[in-house]
Structure formats: C-alpha cells, structure tokens
C-alpha cells in the first residue's frame, strides 16, 4: 500500500516533550516517542488520558503549547520527500449519503490523487478492504464492519507513511475486527507506520509491535508486552492456589486474601512451579485447585494506572 521501504530504521515521526493544555487542564504532559516505518504502535490508556489529543497534535489539528513534533522525510524512488499522513477518526468520517466509490474518489482528490492514479488506487483499496462488490452502495447502507473498513480505506488511498487510527474497531464484530487488523498488518508489511489508539486489550496485546500506556497526559510505560510486564510486575506468571478450608499457618511468599481460602504468587518461569508445589506439600497445605495465569496487559495497565474510575 505504500512505497516506503520497510527496512528503513530511521523514525518517520518524533515527538519531543510535547505539552498541551486543553480546556483548562493538562492534556499532554511532556510526551516523547518515536514511530518507525513498518511499526504497529498501540496507544493504550483510560478514557481522558490524552490519546485523542495526542493524535490531533500529531495530525496538525492542534498545535502543542511546547515541545516538537517532527515528521521526518522519507526516501522514495531515490528522492527525499515529506511523510504523508493519514487519519482515520474514531467516528465514521465518510459521507454517508455518497457511495463507496464516490467517497473514495473525493477523499483521494482531497489528498491530491487524481486521474488514472486515483482510479488504480481506488481499485486497489476496494480489494484490500474487501469492498469491491459494494462500490455503488451508499455508505449509510453498509454494515458497521463495512463502514469501518471504508473509513480506513479512505485514509490510505494516498499511501500514507504514517497512519493514525483512533479506535478503529469500536463496535464491530470479531470477523470485521480480524479483517481490519489484517489490513493493518498488510500496511505495516509494506513499510507504513501505524499508530492505533484503542481500549481493546487483546488487540494491543496480540497485534501491536510496541505498546505505549498513557495516563493523565503522560506516558507511564512503553515497550513490548513482556517488557511492560517486566517493568511493572517483574514476573511473567501468576500462581493461584485455592483451598477447601482456610489456611492456618504462614505460607510465604504466597499472598493470601481473606478468609485465607486462596493465595497468589508470581513466578518468573514455569520451571519454578514444581518447587513451589513441593514446598506446599511439606507444609501440609495442599491446595484443592491450582491455576497458573500469564500476566497480561490488563494487569500491567491496572498496576500502572490503578483501579479508580476515570472520565
């Protein structure tokens, strides 16, 4: 979908200490990050954390109060050119009373694509978004999943080097969600840098190359999922023991909850599990049930942002 080289290592986007006061409060408090070609970056945070403000700043809709947002140049066909930006807003940002084909035409023209080139790219994205049998349908008559795919298709017609997607999978069924992420992976495979904001934990966990957790306008953690877990919880797995009756004696290093019928313990590796179970047997405290769970983004997220409700 893009001509950008997927092997390039220089960032296409750099944010340096970006600050923005929005409607009387600090929406962004010194955000710094880099986005690389071919990367799928998940921006994850509670409501009101500043995700949308950051996307609006990156896209130029909002001007930061301080800090720098640098869109680097990219090398295409041996020539250096400024990066092209694509935006897919959270809502269905297409003309509902235009057909699929007409929507693609007008958004292509707005991005400076015209003539034969436009025709070719429309055919390309129609196939990419699996909408080629609905070209003459009005956007408002499409299903929710199709509308979302059209929304994204309109944002990639001009082959952006950076694609910003604000919660692109809200309200779509699992099949459409799968298709959308497949589309994203195709884009990144061709070298586009994709930044997604979402609330969907499993999407970020399984699909994103890198995760940035944002809260109260600042980045609280950044990295791959395992890096985040290591940075926050320090262990990868959690052992949960359940007992038929309340435990009496101490069972260090397990942490009991009241009324002492269950206990948890974090382990680095599954190889540690037999040793832990042997220790329990020695103490004559055999559990009725043992669960082992891997720590996920939700644990990291709650560890980082707490359990208090947000906006």
């Amino acid at each position, binding site marked *: 979908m893009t001509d950008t080289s997927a092997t390039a290592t220089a960032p296409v986007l750099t944010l340096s200490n970006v600050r923005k006061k929005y409607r009387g409060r600090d929406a962004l408090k010194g955000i710094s990050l880099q986005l690389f070609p071919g990367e799928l970056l998940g921006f994850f945070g509670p409501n009101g954390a500043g995700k949308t403000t950051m996307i609006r700043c990156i896209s130029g809709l909002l001007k930061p109060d301080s800090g720098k947002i640098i869109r680097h140049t990219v090398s295409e066909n041996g020539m250096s050119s400024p990066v092209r930006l694509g935006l897919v*807003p959270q809502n269905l940002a297409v003309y509902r009373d235009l057909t699929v084909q007409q929507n693609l035409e007008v958004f292509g023209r*707005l991005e400076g694509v015209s003539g034969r080139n436009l025709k070719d790219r429309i055919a390309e994205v129609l196939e990419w978004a699996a909408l080629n049998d609905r070209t003459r349908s009005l956007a408002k008559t499409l299903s929710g999943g199709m509308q979302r795919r059209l929304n994204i298709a309109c944002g990639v017609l001009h082959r952006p080097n950076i694609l910003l997607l604000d919660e692109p999978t809200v309200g779509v069924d699992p099949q459409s969600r799968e298709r959308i992420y497949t589309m994203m992976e195709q884009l990144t495979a061709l070298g586009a840098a994709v930044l997604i904001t979402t609330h969907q934990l499993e999407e970020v966990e399984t699909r994103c190359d890198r995760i940035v957790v944002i809260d109260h306008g600042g980045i609280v953690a950044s990295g791959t999922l395992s890096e985040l877990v290591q940075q926050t919880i320090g262990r990868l797995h959690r052992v949960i023991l359940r007992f038929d009756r309340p435990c009496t004696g101490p069972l260090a290093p397990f942490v009991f909850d009241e009324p002492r019928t269950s206990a948890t313990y974090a382990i680095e590796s599954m190889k540690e599990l037999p040793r832990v179970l042997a220790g329990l047997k020695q103490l004559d405290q055999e559990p009725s049930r043992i669960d082992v769970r891997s720590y996920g983004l939700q644990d990291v997220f709650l560890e980082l942002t707490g359990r208090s409700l947000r906006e």
Partner: protein
Amino acid sequence: MILTILRIFCLRLRNNPLELLLVFVMPVVFFSIFAVIFSKGIATGSDTKLRVGWISSQQTPLGTELRAFLETNSSLECTSLVETPPSAGLDDATMAAEISAAQQSGQFDLIVRLPGDFPDDIANRTGRRPCVVSLVTDGQNPVPVAMVTSVVSGFFAQKQATVAVEQLLRLLPGTPNSPGPRDAGAAGELKSASAGSLCREPEYFDAVRTPADVFGSDDGSRFLPVDESGVTAVGTSSAIPERWVSSRPVLPPEDHASCSDQAKTGVLSGNADKAVSIVVENPQAASQENPRIAMYAAGIAVLFLLFSATGHAAALLEEAESGTLDRILVSRAGLFHIIGGKWLGILLLGCLQITVMFLWADAVFGIQLGRHVVGFCVMTFSTAAATASFAMLLATVCRSRAQLNAASVVIVLSMSAVGGSMIPRFAMSERMKDIGKWTFNAWALDGYQKVFWFQSPVSSLQMEVTVLLGSSVALGLLTLMLSGRWKRG
C-alpha cells in the same frame, strides 16, 4: 407508569434549552413582530399617516388650496417633491423624473400631480372642462389611491358647493349683483333644482355667510352630508345636481382591488362635464405584467433561500461531529478551502433556487423575467452571496446541528417577518421598515422591486448590491476568522 413517562417527557424538555426556546420564546417573538407590524402599520387606525408627495407644474391658487386641504387631513402627510417650482413651471420630463425618483425612494405612498393647465379657480375652468388631478401610484398599495381620491373629491365638492352657494346668494331677490333670469348654467340649474327648499328657509342665509359655516352647521348636510368621521360623502345631496360633484366617489373597501386594476390601465376616471377628473397613473403599468407576483416570488425565494442556505451550511457541523472535517483538514485542503468550497456551493444552489422560482413565476404568472434578466441576475447573485455568508457564519458560531436548527428557525423567520418576505414592507410603519433594513430580505426585496416593479436600470441597484455584497464579504471574513475553532476542537 404514565406518570413516569410524563416525568421523562418533562425532564427531557427541561434539559433541552433549544426546545424550550422554540416552544416558548419563538411564539412570543413572532407575536411581538406581527403585533408591532399590525399595530403601527396599515389599516390600524393608529397615527400612521399616508405619505403623499406633491408636485405641481405651476403654483395656482386652486392648487395651493388643494394642497392645504390635503395637509389639514389628519391621515395624510403631504410633502412637496419640488419645493419651489421655477416661474416658468415644471416641464413634463422634469416632473416625470422627480416622480420616478420619489417612487423609487420608497418614501411616498402616492404622489399627487397637477398638470400645467390646472386652473386658478374652479369657476374659471377652460371650456368647463374638469380640473385634472393625477394620482401617481406604484401600484403596490391600493389604499392610498382610494383614500386620496376621496379627499380630493371632497375638496372639489366643497369648492363647488361654495361656488354654488355664492351664486345662489347672488340670485336671491334683494342681493346686490343678483343675476337676472337670463343667467343660465350652473346657478340657474341649482336655482331650479333647489330654490323651493332654500326659499322656505330664508333665515338660513341670513345667519350664514361663509361656506365653512355653511358646511360646519347641521344644515350644511342638506348640501353635502358629512359623516361622523369627518369624511365628506359626495354625490348624495338632492340639492346639488349629481353631475356637478366629484367624478369619483369614495371607493368602498371592496373596490380597492378594482381600483388597482384600473390603475394599470392608466386613466381611472374622467368626465369633461364634471368639476374634477381624478386620473390614477401607474408609470410602470403600461410596460409590465404582474409585478406583484414578482415581489411575492422574491419574498418567498429569499425566505426559503435563507432556510436552505443554513441547512446546507449545517453540513459543516455534521462533518465536525463525525470527524470528517478533521480528516479533510489533515488532507491538502485547509480551512479556507473548506469554507470557500461550501460557500460557493451554497451560493450556486441559492442562485439556482431563486432562478427556478422566477422561471416558474414567469412561465405560469408571466412576470416578464426575460425583460429583466440583467437586473435579476445581479440581485440574485448578491442575495445568494449574502445568504451564503450568513449561513456559513451561523454554522461556524453554533456548536451543534440542533443548535443551528433552532437558531436558524428563530433568526430566519424573524428576518423574513421584519424584512418583508411575509408581510409587504409598504404595510409596515416607518420604524419597522428601518428595522427591516437590518435584514437581507429587505435589501433583496427592495432590489427586486426596483427591477420588476419600477423597471429601473441596473445602475439603480447600486445601494442594494453594495449592502448585500458588502455583507457577504464582511460575514465571510468573520466566518474565516471564527472558523479557527474547528481546528481547536
């Protein structure tokens, strides 16, 4: 359950100030507008006066008397178009130009014109031809024609009665200079017609010596009855031969329309055997058809133009709400392109909308659009440009589609009511007309009126076009200034 549903209904109403505005404020606003129009406007019995222009080729004693008579009428406000006519008198061309300018100024409901051969005295008419008094109307409002006709008729009836009484007094035995039996004509006829009754009441003539006294007394009603409101009813006295009195009796209200129709043809009435011939002239009538329909078309077109313009400008708010505007702003298009493109679309659609309306009016009602194409195009473009800018500004300052809908209903209907799209401007008081000047409707309708009614040249539209295009530019610039909010989110 019903109470719960009712509670939901009430809570929603309470939490929606726009709906409250439409439900409670709008009717009051409209009531107030129409109350002001009808309480200070036409046919209300208020202190609003008909504005009568006066122009006379030469100053004659009879003409001066007639003007003084008009000025004493509490319903008329008489103003000279030319304060001091030259001693040689005004020629027809000058008078026509003055009248045309006065009509187009919109400051007069009717113009009274006395021709060059207007006599010095009613008794000294050349060849006993009637005195010609021309009432020049623009045909918009039939009421002034009917009213001034009655007043002028009353004046001549009084004048004739005065002459008759004076002649009668001379005829009575023992009166100095009394004519002999050879005297013929009016006095003789009057004598034969009424000598019997008058001779039975010699004390009447002993006591009364002036015409004003005659008609101010109860006995005067024998000659010329005066009704309670002071309006002179002519042609009903058996004491005066019918052919002596005004050629034009007061028109009953139901005759206003026919009066207007007759005005189109030029001469309303005329009879060489009568004392006065009141001629109603409509300078535009000979070369136009259905100008009134053209004005209705313009009024309705501007009203709906405002509604459709605000409706299409609302797309900006829809795009902002859906995020489409953000997507466009991230593309190569800037705010200027977005505002400009939408403004152009509303402008072209507006031009087309008005054109369709006038084409229909031309095809079905024959408003002669073909003869006024240039003026029509100029006014249509100016009006559509102004409304497009206004609609874009409204969309820019409103926060949501619902807010825009409510605001546009209130503003557009108010502008249309005050500006003349609902009620003809001539029916409004001067104050209401002045207020109307703050609306596009008024300027647009004034312009279309000049084109279709007065058939003025395009150059005469200078003021209207300047105001409309100036407003368009000013509001457009204001829109661009305020449109930065779309970027601020």
